[in-house]
Structure formats: C-alpha cells, structure tokens
C-alpha cells in the first residue's frame, strides 16, 4: 500500500521534469555510424564490388527480404548477378551485416526511407551499391581468400606460400 503511494508520488514528481523528446523533423538527432538504417553494398579499396554472392545475408535475414543470384566473372571473381532488398519488409536488424564475410553489406545511419508506394522500396543492386568501402576502409576479401582472380594468382594472397611444384619431391 505504502509502496503504491510512493509510486504515485514519484510519478507525480515527473510532471516537473523536462521532457526528453527530440522534436524530430526540426531537430535532427545524432546517429552513431553503426546505427542500423538503410542498407548499402560497398566496394573494396580497389573499387570493385565487395559482394561475392555467398548468400549468407539472405540466409541470416529473418524476414527473408534479401534475394540474390551469385555469378562468376571471367576473371574469377564472384559477384551477385542481381541483388535485391525489399525494404518494405526489412526490419533493420543488422543480421545481414553481421553475417557478411566480406564487409560488403552494411547498414547506414540513414533511416528516412518513407514512401507512399511500397514498390519504390524494392532496391536493386544499382540502388544499393555505393562508391566506397563504407565503415571498413582497408578490407579486400580477395587479398585473404585462396581463390585466384585476375591480378592475384594462386599463392599471392596474404599469408600464402607460392604454389607447390607438384613434380618436386624435395622436402
């Protein structure tokens, strides 16, 4: 009983506190860089698409709003033939970003995605791809992967030895 009265008193005292509401459209809040807003696809430091079409983001997506098709370029790089995010379904949970092994898919602090037409919220690869590495400036997946691509032969990745000479029996 007493605790109830105390609660009522405490709540009443809040009447005299300053509201913490941010008056949004006039007053823009500061959003940290890791805020989970609109999703983008980034490029690696050499300017090529980072996405290798591994399907992990689409598998991680709890609302299944990412669809893509992996392809392979003649130079050996994997890439998404199409990459589609249906933002009208996206819940901005960021699991795709966590799943991405190449830092390709990233969430940005842009949350102003409203539209009167849901169809406009379906973003294709052209809409998603940005001209930069996003939050992870230095990373290039193909510099650490074992796959050979043009400009990086077998054994040329970080932490790799030159390819073995199969015909040699030397230790």
């Amino acid at each position, binding site marked *: 009983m007493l605790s109830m009265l105390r609660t009522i008193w405490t709540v009443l005292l809040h009447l005299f506190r300053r509201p913490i509401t941010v008056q949004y459209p006039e007053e823009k809040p500061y959003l940290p860089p890791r805020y989970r807003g609109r999703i983008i696809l980034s490029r690696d430091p050499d300017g090529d698409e980072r996405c290798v079409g591994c399907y992990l983001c689409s598998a991680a997506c709890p609302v299944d709003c990412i669809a893509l*098709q992996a392809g392979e370029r003649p130079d050996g790089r994997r890439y998404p033939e199409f990459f*589609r995010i249906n933002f009208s379904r996206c819940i901005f949970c960021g699991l795709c970003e966590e799943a991405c092994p190449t830092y390709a898919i990233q969430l940005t602090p842009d949350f102003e995605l409203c539209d009167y037409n849901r169809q406009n919220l*379906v973003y*294709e690869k052209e809409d998603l791809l940005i001209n930069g590495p996003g939050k992870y400036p230095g990373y290039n997946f193909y510099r650490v992967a074992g796959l050979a691509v043009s400009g990086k032969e077998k*054994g040329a990745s970080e932490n790799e*030895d030159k*390819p*073995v000479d199969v015909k040699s029996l030397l230790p």
Partner: protein
Amino acid sequence: MATIYVDDRPYEVDPAKNLLEECLSKGLDLPYFCWHPALGSVGACRQCAVKQYRDENDQRGRIVMACMTPAMDGARISIRDKDAVQFRAGIIELLMSNHPHDCPVCDEGGECHLQDMTVMTGHNYRGYRFGKRTFTNQQLGPFINHEMNRCITCYRCVRYYRDYAGGKDLDAFASHNHVYFGRHEDGALENEFSGNLVEICPTGVFTDKTLKQHYTRKWDLQTAPSVCAHCSLGCNTIAGERYGQLRRILNRYNAQVNGYFLCDRGRFGYGFVNGDRRLRQPRLLQDGESRPVSGAEALKRTALLLGRQSRVIGIGSPRASVEANFALRTLVGSRNFFSGMAPGEEHLVARMLHVLRGAGVRTPSLCEVESADAVLVLGEDVTQTAPLLALAIRQAVKQAPRRQAMQLRIPRWDDAALNEVMQQQKGPLYIATPAGTRLDEAATQCFRGAPDDVARLGFAVARALDATAPPVRGLSREERAAVQAIAGALRKAERPVVVSGSGCGSEAVVDAAAQVARALGGAGTANLCFTAAECNSFGLGLLNAMGTAEAFQRVADGLVDTVVVLENDLYRRVGRASVEAMLASAHVVAIDHSATDTVAGAEVAFPSGTFAETEGTMVNNEGRAQRFYQVFVPQGEVKPAWSWLGELAQAAGRTELTGLRSPDDLLAALGRAVAAFEGLPERVAGASFRVNGEKVPRLSPRASGRTAVSANVNVHEPKPPEDPDSPLAFTMEGYPQQPPSPLITRFWAPGWNSVQSLNKFQAEVGGALAGGDPGMRLIEPVANGAAAYTDEIPPAFRRRAGEFLVVPLHHIFGSDEQSAVAPAVAQRSPGPYAALSPEDAQTLGVQDGEFVEIELDGGMFQLPALLMSSMTVGVLGVPVGIGSLRGVDLPARSRCRRV
C-alpha cells in the same frame, strides 16, 4: 551381437563392424574424414580418435582410431574423454592450417563436411602463424571444378575414383605436405562416375561445375525426391530448384538401387529441363507455320480432333511416367494404345519381361549385383547403357578375391589391408559384346563377336552348365575353351549373375542370357539382370501396349483420324518416311516437354512437364516401381501430360478420364486395370499422406528470399503454390523432422549439413534407410518349377563381302535423348561415326576419319570412319541417338563403301 561401452553406456553392436560405424549407427556424433561407408577405413585422417580402455578399472586408456578398431565384445571407449577431445581438436587445427579463407566463394559452403566437423570439434581460430600451402588448379572438364587449395588430404577422392570406380586418370602426386590430387595434365576426368567426387570430397576441392553456372546454396534449393530419367536403372536422386530453374541433381541413397553413387549422365544430364528447346506454350500448326497459342485455344482446336465420332489412337512413351501412359491408354482404349518404342526395342522389352516373369530366373537389384561373385555380360555395353550397373559389376569383381583375403581374418572394412592382399586380383567377369567396352579392363576374359555369336556363346554356356539344354554346334576351339571357363566360373560361384539387355538389339542375346540363368538354376536366387533403353521401358512394357509398327500401319490404311503422341519423338523410333507419312495423313496431337521434331510437325502441341515438374511412377530394369515427385512449379502453361490428357478429354466431351484428376487416381485405376500393378497404389505415399498431420516441406527452414524473390515484379508476395497431388509442400512449412524414406527431400541433420548426414537417415550406417528403402518390385517370377529351354539357336554370323552388320553402339553422353541436350553432357558427347575394325577398314580402303557411306532402311548415311581395334570383323558400329542416323532398327545388314 556384441556389447560395447561408449562413455559407460552399453550398446549392442555388430562385431564385424568398426567402432566408428557403430558409434554413428547408434546416433553418436564422432567426427571423421577419410572413412566412407562405401570405401571402408584406412585410418588416414586421424580425426575419429577415441579413448579405449582395457576394462572398467582402466583409468588411463589409450587413444585409438575408431575407424580402425573393431567393435569387439566388451570394448570400452570414450568419445568425450578430455584427451580424445583435445586430440581431435589438434588434428582439425592441423588440417585447417592450410585451408584457405574461401568459404564465402566456395560451392561446398553450407554443405561442407569439413565445416561441420570443424564446428563439431570446436576449432575456430588459426593458431599457425606461417604461410598457407597453395596449389594451382586443373581444368577437369565440364562436370567437375577443381580447387586444390582446399584439400585436407583425406585420400577419399583417389580411393573412390581408382579403387571403387576403376578410374585411371586421377591420382595423388608429390609428397609430404605437397600431396596433390589431380590428373597428370589438364583434361576432362574420363571416368563415367567422376561426379561422385562432389559428394565424396569432404570439402570443396571437387565441386559441381554445372551448379556453378547458376550457383545456389543447399539451403535455398527447393528439393524433392526424384528418380533419374536417363537410363533404365532408376537411380534415386534429389533434384533441386531455385528461381524456376532446375539447378542440380544429388544422389538420394537407396540401399537397393544406387547406394551412394550416381553416374555423370544422371548427375549432370538435368540441363534439358532449363534448356531453350523447352516447350512452354501450346502451339498450333497453321499454314505450315507453328505458332504459340493459349491453352484454351489449343484445347478448342483439339476438341474437334478428339470428338466421339473421331477414330483416335494413342502412342505412349518409354520416357513418360506410368501414370501418363495409362491416362493415354484409358483415353483411347487399350486396343488403340501403342507403345511408341522402336519396334525392335519393343519386342525385346516384351521378351525380357516374359523371361523375368517365367520360371528359374530372378532379377537382382543393383545392390545384389554388387555382391555377385561371378558375372557374365552378354551383348551389353553396360557402362554406356546402364552406367551404375557397370559400377556395381566393378564391385562384384572384387567379391571373390576379397572373400579370400578375409580368410586371413582381415575385417571387411579394413580397406587398405584388403587391397594389400587382393592387389590386382579380379573375380570372374566375362564379357561378350560386338565391340570393346569400358568394363573390359576389369574382365577375366572378353569375347568379341556379332550379336548372334554372342548369343551362341551364351547358349553354349547354358549347355555346359546343364546337359539338358540344347547344344550349340560349330563352335571354334577358342569358343569352346571360353565356354568351359565361363561355365566353370559360374558353377563355382555362390551368387552368379548374368547381365544382358536390349543394348545390342538382339533377341537371341536376350534368350541366351535367359538360358544361362535358367541353366544356373536355383530358383529364387537373383541371377539375371536385364537393362532396357529408357527410364520407363519396363513400366510401359507392363501396360501391354500394341506394337508401334501397327500404329503406322493403321494410319497408312486410313483407319485413324487423330493420333495423340505422348512425350515421344517418333523420329527416334521409326524411319523418317513413316513419321512424315503419319503427320501428313492424320491429325497429330503431341504432348511433350521439349520442341522435338515430332512436336514441330504436330498439328497441336501441348507443353508437358519434365520429371522435375510432374510426379509419377517409373519402373526400372529390376521391375521396381518408384515414385518421383514434382520439384517445382514450371513457368508458362506447362502441365503434367496426364493433366493435359484430362483436359483434352473434357474439352472433347469424352468421359474416359472423368474422375481421374490426379496421379493417385490414375495409379489406383491402373492397379485395378493391370494385374502387374496390383498392390502398388496402396504402397505409394499419395497426396493425402501426412506425417503427424503435416505435409513434408520441399524447402529447408533456412530457405531465403521469400519476400524479395518476386518483389521486382510486384512487392506484394504471391501466395505460395499449393500441391494437391503429393504429400509434399512448396514451402518450408510442414513436418520438421526426418520424413519417411520415400519422401526424403534432403539429407540434413542438426550439426550435419553435408551429404554425410545420410548416416542419420539409415537404420544402420551403410544399410537400408530407416523405415525401409523406397520402391516396390513389380516383377517377381510368377511360375516355379522346371525351366523350359529354348532351342532357337541362331546360326553363326557369316560375313558377306561388301556388306556389314550395323550394330548400335551406346554412349553414356549423347545416346539418351533427354540428357544429350544438357550443355555439360553435350560437351562430352562424341560426334557421329562409323566404327570399323582395322581389317575391314583396310578392305574398304578407308583411313580413320574418312567418310564411308552406308545404306540403312532405304536411306543413305555418310559417316566418318572410326577405326576400333576391338570391333568384330564384319560388324560396323554406329552411335545411338547421335547425328542424323535415327529411327533405324538395328542391328541390320547394310552395304558400305568408301565415299
């Protein structure tokens, strides 16, 4: 039975097995790499380490490899022991020290045994600071992609490829840390079973190159249990689809049929489903021009052709399901239903069925062929016509020497030790064919001759086995010696098998094989294995259709108004002139999945579904009826053939197919109408079948992209398609656990994402699926008692000057109509040729590659000569289904000259 203790819990085990097998059979998770149930143990990877204790008082124990330790009575082991856990973690860390950072771009990712085992063992960070060993890759042809960096040197690939499948061109090179698995130079892997490397390799060294063209992860594929449609063996497959395209075929284990393996035709021949030759819209022929129309328009046109007063006949197909054929038979009446097989083949299928249902013989399953200890192949190039049978025979050849080796008390699973004792010894395998075969290298002795001579050899063997069989006169001395050797080997064997089929087109050969099997006696033992040309040849044969030739005769006699052709390219069956005469003098309604020449000439054509877009039943060479299920909903107006037939009947006001609206209805009616199919409808999991009240999902719970796949067209997702015809659902909703064995849509178990999860689906490792292997044998010997011998023994083949006996030569890649258009298979398919023995070539004066002209069935064909040293003199081989030579009944005599 023996009792072992794993972590102090007792388990009843089979002492003939090893600890690893038994632990897995009991559902215990124990990581492994080099062991494979079909390959046995070599103890190479050291991953399945467990601690073994002397007795219950032993506290220290010692680390042993579970795969190399027999499950002896009273054995006490611990999987969870700290030392064993640490040992396994150490091994995986070593294996991973050179593994590249590739998973996102690796096709194995998500179904990788190495990933699963790494997770199971608990290794996550590479502690090794130094560089990774790397390799250069090889081009291994259109089927297999090679990425050697990922290798963990478990040796499974070469053990499978060389020891199991008999391949020669894949080997281990270099030494120590540099061991390399590949060919001596770039080039396609020659073995017909190379595709199994995809499933054998525990990681991504060998991956499916056809999948790479349209790569999809395992969890995104919509999969359904299917049956291979490319030869008569009916191997069980899992077909996977994404975005409306069939993307890959995986093996679906069936202990009785294909076991763990598929041939490359079955695995990579699916491309025709996505091909641009597909018919996706009904077509009408107007003013000599075929144009696409709506289904309604095509049906309206067809209704006039199929009216009550119209005289309609139906031509079935050995590549259509039993249901579709039966629907056509019901529509036109059994007296107007023709098989649609080539006349020669049709005759042979009827003959083979007659033999198999008669006394004294029983047809073995592939599994039983594997355990045969003496094999006689008559007239059939098994590797090309029924590839997996060849793989089974290669295992059968090892039976006799292995049995000897096991007398040294080496357990069955101890592969390395057995191989050491067996060396290159082979059990008895005798092959008699017109031309050399890929299996010859495994044979004890090969016999070359024209089909009649092959048959005579068979009859002579029967005589040698049983003196009451009719004698064969006029055999040469070598032939008599061969007959004695063969008869001796067969007589000595416990489980002899005679293999033959329609491959060389000779009825005498089929009869001879039956004669040998009967002479072997022992009713009830599986001893006679036949192969037919197509996936449902035997199913069609059991429907008692009329002969194809009679259909053409009836049309020629003007007794027919309309011909309904079901999934059949008639140009492949009979001569061009006959088909064109039929197209000209009757209204032809064709139902097919691809735009064949018959479809192009038909007045109306309806698009039917391939094996992946429909469901139905096929009967394989063993007489096993197997259900294949629809994998995905096709684009366009593609419908199952039986569905089109039902609509046709309705549009035409016919009532024959009223009430037969689903494959279940058709099968039930078939069970009532045809005695051979009695009991089958009850055994099939029909549309109303449910597991715990739920359907079985075709999609995995992890399937992705549902709300984005079609969002570019319309952001409002469509309702998922419903499947009224099967107990499977086109969604991820449904029974979440292991379905009954005929409905296994994918092999997956918690913690086991790769195909190795199959262990969890088997009653015991390497044995039958839990709940029994799917399929029902329809052909069992109906009569018992004395076998009746035939005395129609053909005279010996006598060559005539300037004339050749043209025999068909089959090719695994190219001879099958459907798989031949798959891009990967087409790359491996040979061009047209005329195969001659060097002697004949010399007589004709042709060099290799020069053109010869042969006259067949009234037509002249020019083909490049191919000199084949194994070819019988006086016999000329032409490839089946390749080039312009189609619709000719072979073997046939023909004049041949140099161009």
